[in-house]
């Protein structure tokens, strides 16, 4: 007989099934057996009184840095960070050294994920060879090897013709193209949002137009090709509006936003601390308000971390010389709960952006507690007040802009395939 686990007395929220109710969840042999008001016998019982029982959370935008930059993160440390943050599933970007643009690279990610044996990891393959934006990568073979999406993330695809061909080609394999929407010419040497703050600080700016021009172009190309486009980390009010109009016009476009773009503004850069340096950069309060509106009205589908580890020494330098990127696997959920619950989203709404919505974008059958689904479950204590402390993070890196922040709510238990992979002490 397969091992059975009963998670009882919790508030089960499964947006995919429209469930938000006090129910008991029975897991058996690594799958969901049933959601019931009854109390079936089980080998193990977990008391979830006061907890939210959610489908295992999905972070569809993570940089695991392996192969090539293991000083910043590895697939093992990134997996540990994922489950500690409540994520049972993550998708990892191909901007490694070398880039994941072939079958062998894709299989290596899957092998390392299996060895780490913590979270489920889906590789994202590069759209172009070496992420150079010149020739299409072997999208068909990489899909067969296990990549669920394609992206040159970290860099935009500069050439509109290559972007068009990438969308057309990926569509054949029913794969989404995740695009880092940016016009590199408009961004130039920019290191922060262009505006009053960059003028005061004397730092070169990245105008909102850099993102907006690229989003507009890519939505037009998505309509031309009929392909699925996912806009990574939208950061501007103009970008949200373009996506809203693109959806209304029938383009197959989805979008994600990060917690840092929802919670922080370019005022943070005043300290010149590179922990606030990422691309796209922190924008203004007006942009933050527009991103929140975008989540509220469904223009933005997904919340993702854009977890981008960098070793401490690389961020202990002049702002303009530090690399772009912040980590987020272990801060996403508490920051999202603290910033968004009641004000922007209700609980089922927030859980949806972290479960069914990213699963739909990636085309994977996850993010649900439907009977028969894999037993991936995240238990959340919604009212726990605590302080984010990077020294306690599982990630190998420390570049979190939310360090020291008072937050409410956290994942207290992360179950992958019926096995507990993380438990808060």
């Amino acid at each position, binding site marked *: 007989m397969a091992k059975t686990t009963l998670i009882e007395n919790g508030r089960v929220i499964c947006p995919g099934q429209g469930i938000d109710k006090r129910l008991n969840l029975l897991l058996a042999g690594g799958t969901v057996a049933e959601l019931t008001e009854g109390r079936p016998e089980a080998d193990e019982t977990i008391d979830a009184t006061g907890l939210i029982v959610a489908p295992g959370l999905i972070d569809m935008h993570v940089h695991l840095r392996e192969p090539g930059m293991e000083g910043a993160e590895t697939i093992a440390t990134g997996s540990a960070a994922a489950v500690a943050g409540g994520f049972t599933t993550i998708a990892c970007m191909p901007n490694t050294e070398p880039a994941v643009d072939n079958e062998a690279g894709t299989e290596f990610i899957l092998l390392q994920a299996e060895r780490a044996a913590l979270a489920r990891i889906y590789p994202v393959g590069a759209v172009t060879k070496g992420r150079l934006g010149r020739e299409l990568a072997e999208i068909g073979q990489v899909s067969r090897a296990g990549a669920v999406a394609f992206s040159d993330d970290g860099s935009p695809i500069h050439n509109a013709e290559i972007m068009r061909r990438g969308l057309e080609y990926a569509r054949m394999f029913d794969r989404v193209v995740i695009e880092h929407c940016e016009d590199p010419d408009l961004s130039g040497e920019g290191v922060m949002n262009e505006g009053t703050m960059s003028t*005061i600080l004397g730092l070169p700016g990245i105008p909102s137009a850099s993102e907006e021009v690229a989003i507009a172009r890519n939505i037009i190309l998505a309509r031309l090709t009929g392909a699925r486009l996912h806009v990574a980390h939208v950061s501007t009010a103009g970008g949200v509006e373009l996506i809203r109009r693109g959806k209304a016009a029938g383009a197959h476009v989805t979008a994600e936003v990060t917690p840092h773009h929802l919670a922080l503004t370019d005022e943070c850069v005043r300290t010149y601390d590179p922990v606030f340096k990422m691309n796209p950069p922190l924008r203004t309060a007006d942009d933050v308000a527009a991103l929140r509106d975008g989540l509220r009205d469904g223009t933005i589908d997904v919340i993702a971390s854009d977890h981008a580890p960098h070793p401490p020494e690389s961020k202990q330098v002049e702002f303009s010389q530090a690399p772009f990127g912040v980590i987020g696997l272990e801060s996403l959920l508490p920051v999202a709960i603290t910033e968004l619950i009641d004000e922007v989203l209700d609980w089922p709404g927030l859980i949806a952006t972290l479960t069914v919505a990213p699963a739909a974008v990636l085309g994977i059958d996850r993010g649900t507690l439907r009977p028969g689904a894999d037993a991936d479950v995240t238990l959340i204590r919604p009212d726990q007040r605590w302080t984010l402390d990077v020294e306690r993070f599982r990630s190998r890196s420390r570049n979190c802009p939310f360090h020291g922040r008072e937050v409410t709510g956290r994942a207290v238990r992360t179950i992958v395939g019926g096995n507990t992979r993380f438990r808060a002490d």
Partner: protein
Amino acid sequence: MAQLGEPALEWTRKHLLGLEDLSAEELDIILDTAESFREVSTRKRKKVPTLTGKVVVLMFVEPSTRTVTSFSLAAGRLSADTVSFSKGGSSISKGETLVDTARNIQAMGCDVIVLRHSAPGAPHLLARNLECSVVNAGDGAHEHPTQGLLDMFTIRERKGHIEGLTVGICGDIKYSRVARSNIWGLTKLGARVVVCGPATLIPDGIEEMGVEVFHDLDEFIPQCDVINILRIQLERQKSGLFPSIREYARVFGINSERLERAKDGLLIMHPGPMNRGIEITPAVADGPHSVVLDQVTNGLAVRMAVLYLVCGAKG
């Protein structure tokens, strides 16, 4: 006014990173202190023992002539020991980080690091990571506080006051640390600041720093009591920010004909180094309105005051 060698009780800042953070009172303390130090440079023996036993390190990671000389003389006149190094002759060129280099310097016992660096915020990075005082001697396009102070000192000396004056800044505002320090300092002391330059060199949101923007010199000049003419970096033309040096000189160069419409008693300032014949004609640079060499002279007194105050702040 502070007496020589006596700690300024009102001064509490360990670092001078920019003029944005300073209050009008603090600006006045520096300018008054500089006033009291000016006389030292006119003595036969140009030295006072005020900072005897203090160590001032001049870290000029970006090239400089007048600022490094000025700081070096200023520290010398206060009897501080000085060491100076540049990028080429230091371990920074061997890949050591700025923080590591500075920590090593600090470990040898230094009281003040004067930093010139091409990266905005580099002095803030040192201030966060070191115990000693940090004085910003120019950080990229961010601030050059002692230049701002010496410009204000020169205006106050010539005009008797700053409040109520209209001070114009002309040229490449976008990449100018001098412009930013002047804007903060002058507006705090009650001047009206107007800027003039090509639209491509006026940065986004500058109005929110409290200035008015012009693009036409003939409209701009008659309003000004003082015009600070900025150096145009010739490489800006190569990066496409204006079409040609010739066009820049015609549209934004300050010449004698244009100054015919200026107010009486107009002061012409330039932080140097000048491109004679481009942003300023030789006739204007050397003409009756020009106070460019006074600026340099006053720079010494201002830097003496700053070194003295930050050393005193530590007790």
